[in-house]
């Protein structure tokens, strides 16, 4: 990696960008109506959707942010990604097949129908835009970083080229283009990360190099000797781990671009198995990236190499260049470009669909399908251009911004989606209360901490320590649950046709009032939420010392 232009990397990146555009134009032929454009005609199989979800899940934070976080604070980073991997199965058992049976196009569509409220649907469009923009600018910034750091080209051009390429293939190919592109990009990523990591581990002397996720165990004793705190997990309050778990589990259900993938599959069975396939593949990649973080620390400790801490997020590439050579570095760069494109595409798709289908479509319900399709194409193009321009002034830390997006989505969307599926008594007033409380208690701290530069402890003294703001999720998500359960109980039960939706989502042809209508679930949710909040107010005196 040098200041000069890295030609092999540029060639590999151009190949990925060109194939992505070609797939977009090819997919155009498959698109003839709105269902094709938004949800690929609900025709995607489990394997295809599993791979598409993989590349959607692995944004640039996997290549750039995670290794830096591992090197800074090892166990915390692994805990974040372990929860993130497990969250897919939480999404599977709590939401995926049920959302598919609902036959919506988007999360906002689901909320509007399930909670029989046009206003809630419009409100959810606004929340979706906030969450998606946070997630999006972080990833477009990542493309710029790759261009500048790895290819020797200005960051500005990376943001512009990356943003435009995705805008073109999403606009032209719609969800078919996005899906097949994401599948293609998954194969690029698997190849681009697994093989270089194998070579890196082999070069460092790991006998298990052929299976990176578990292939570096015999290097551990040397590592513990060199870096004794490497596996030390106690620099944070236990609530930090609970917060990460809640943010991952409900955040992934709440992030509209993840949920949208389930509306594209053929049926509930395909939705289930695509999530299982995705979880297995995400685990392989994440566990291999842990190996890179481990190798990074081991490499510096054993080889006497010093790397500037501000370059820790490039460790995948630093090690690949040092131990595998420039050809493999070019492939790893292509993998990173693919990772960024796939996530950006999913976000543009949900933003465009949300603005046309859930905003304009609600305000102008008599618009013809042909006009809506044309409008969707132009809005998608406009959203892509505006997002690219916004990303020219991106946030400083990619992974941190994505974590905020998870927290906000979990509190504002994850809560009403889960209760909307599993509790018939959930009302529109309850959903509104949950969404507003969840959004405000997570978005206001984001504004104060990330935009106005407040110390997290100025908001609450319990938010101390490394990544202490994460503990905000231990308030916002339980508060959203409490608000939704209490207000639902205090308001009139939903109409019969809405209660019937719940049975249909679970696959029942008939209707029975007693299904999903008991008191155990809401009482349990209330009790657990109160316990989590109370627990987050404990142990301050002990853990403030440890945290500092």
């Amino acid at each position: 990696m040098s200041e000069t232009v890295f030609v092999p990397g540029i060639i590999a990146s151009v190949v990925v960008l060109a194939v992505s555009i070609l797939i977009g134009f090819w997919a155009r032929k498959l698109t003839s109506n709105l269902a094709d454009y938004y949800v690929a005609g609900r025709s995607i199989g489990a394997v295809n959707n599993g791979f598409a979800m993989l590349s959607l899940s692995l944004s640039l934070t996997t290549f750039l942010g995670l290794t830096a976080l591992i090197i800074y604070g090892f166990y915390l980073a692994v805990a974040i990604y372990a929860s993130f991997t497990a969250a897919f199965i939480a999404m599977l058992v709590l939401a995926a097949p049920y959302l598919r049976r609902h036959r919506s196009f988007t999360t906002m569509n689901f909320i509007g129908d399930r909670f029989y409220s046009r206003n809630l649907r419009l409100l959810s469009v606004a929340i979706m835009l906030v969450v998606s923009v946070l997630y999006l600018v972080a990833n477009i910034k990542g493309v710029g970083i790759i261009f500048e750091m790895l290819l020797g080209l200005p960051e500005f051009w990376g943001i512009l080229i990356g943003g435009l390429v995705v805008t073109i293939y999403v606009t032209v190919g719609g969800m078919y283009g996005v899906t097949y592109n994401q599948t293609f990009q998954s194969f690029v990523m698997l190849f681009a990360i697994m093989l270089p990591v194998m070579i890196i581990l082999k070069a460092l002397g790991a006998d298990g190099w052929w299976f990176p996720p578990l292939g570096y165990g015999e290097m551990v004793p040397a590592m513990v000797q060199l870096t004794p705190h490497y596996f030390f997990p106690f620099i944070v309050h236990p609530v930090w781990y609970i917060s990460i778990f809640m943010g991952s589990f409900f955040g992934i259900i709440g992030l509209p671009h993840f949920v949208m993938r389930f509306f594209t599959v053929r049926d509930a069975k395909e939705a289930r198995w695509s999530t299982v396939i995705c979880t297995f593949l995400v685990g392989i990649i994440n566990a291999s990236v842990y190996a890179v973080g481990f190798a990074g620390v081991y490499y510096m400790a054993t080889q006497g190499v010093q790397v500037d801490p501000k370059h820790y997020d490039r460790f995948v590439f630093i090690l690949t260049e040092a131990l595998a050579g420039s050809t493999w570095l070019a492939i790893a760069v292509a993998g990173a470009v693919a990772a960024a494109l796939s996530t950006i595409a999913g976000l543009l798709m949900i933003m465009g669909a949300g603005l046309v289908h859930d905003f304009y479509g609600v305000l102008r319900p008599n618009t013809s399908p042909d006009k809506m399709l044309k409008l969707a194409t132009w809005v998608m193009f406009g959203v892509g251009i505006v997002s690219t321009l916004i990303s020219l002034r991106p946030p400083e830390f990619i992974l941190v911004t994505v974590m905020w997006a998870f927290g906000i989505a979990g509190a504002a969307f994850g809560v009403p989606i889960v209760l909307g599926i599993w509790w018939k008594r959930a009302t529109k007033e309850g959903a509104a209360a949950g969404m507003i409380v969840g959004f405000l208690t997570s978005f206001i701290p984001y504004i104060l901490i990330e935009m106005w530069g407040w110390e997290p402890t100025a908001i609450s003294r319990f938010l101390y320590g490394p990544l202490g703001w994460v503990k905000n999720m231990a308030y916002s998500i339980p508060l959203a649950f409490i608000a939704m359960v209490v207000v639902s109980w205090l308001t009139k039960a939903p109409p019969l046709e809405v209660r019937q939706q719940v049975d249909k989502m679970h696959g029942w042809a008939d209707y029975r009032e007693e299904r999903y209508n008991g008191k155990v679930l809401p009482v349990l949710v209330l009790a657990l939420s109160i316990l989590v909040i109370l627990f987050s107010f404990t142990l301050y005196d002990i853990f403030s010392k440890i945290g500092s």
Partner: protein
Amino acid sequence: MDGYKKELWITVVVFTLVVLTGGILSVFFVLGKDAFFGPAPAFKPHTHVLGFPLHYFLLLVFSWIGVTVLGGVWSFVMDRIDKKEV
């Protein structure tokens, strides 16, 4: 058992296991209460699996392979429930 109750129970059990394997197991049970509730944690891993400290190995493997297997089992059972109801 009624298909509805079967669905609920299986989902509750699988979700609870996913919560445990997704991090809570490692954090609360393997590391132990002394590590968290003591005045200053002095932690040194003693048990190793495949060369990894036990708490790390559990987090690494269970949060990935463990949940994948659980997801597969849940999907298989739900497929069967779907068929029966059809």
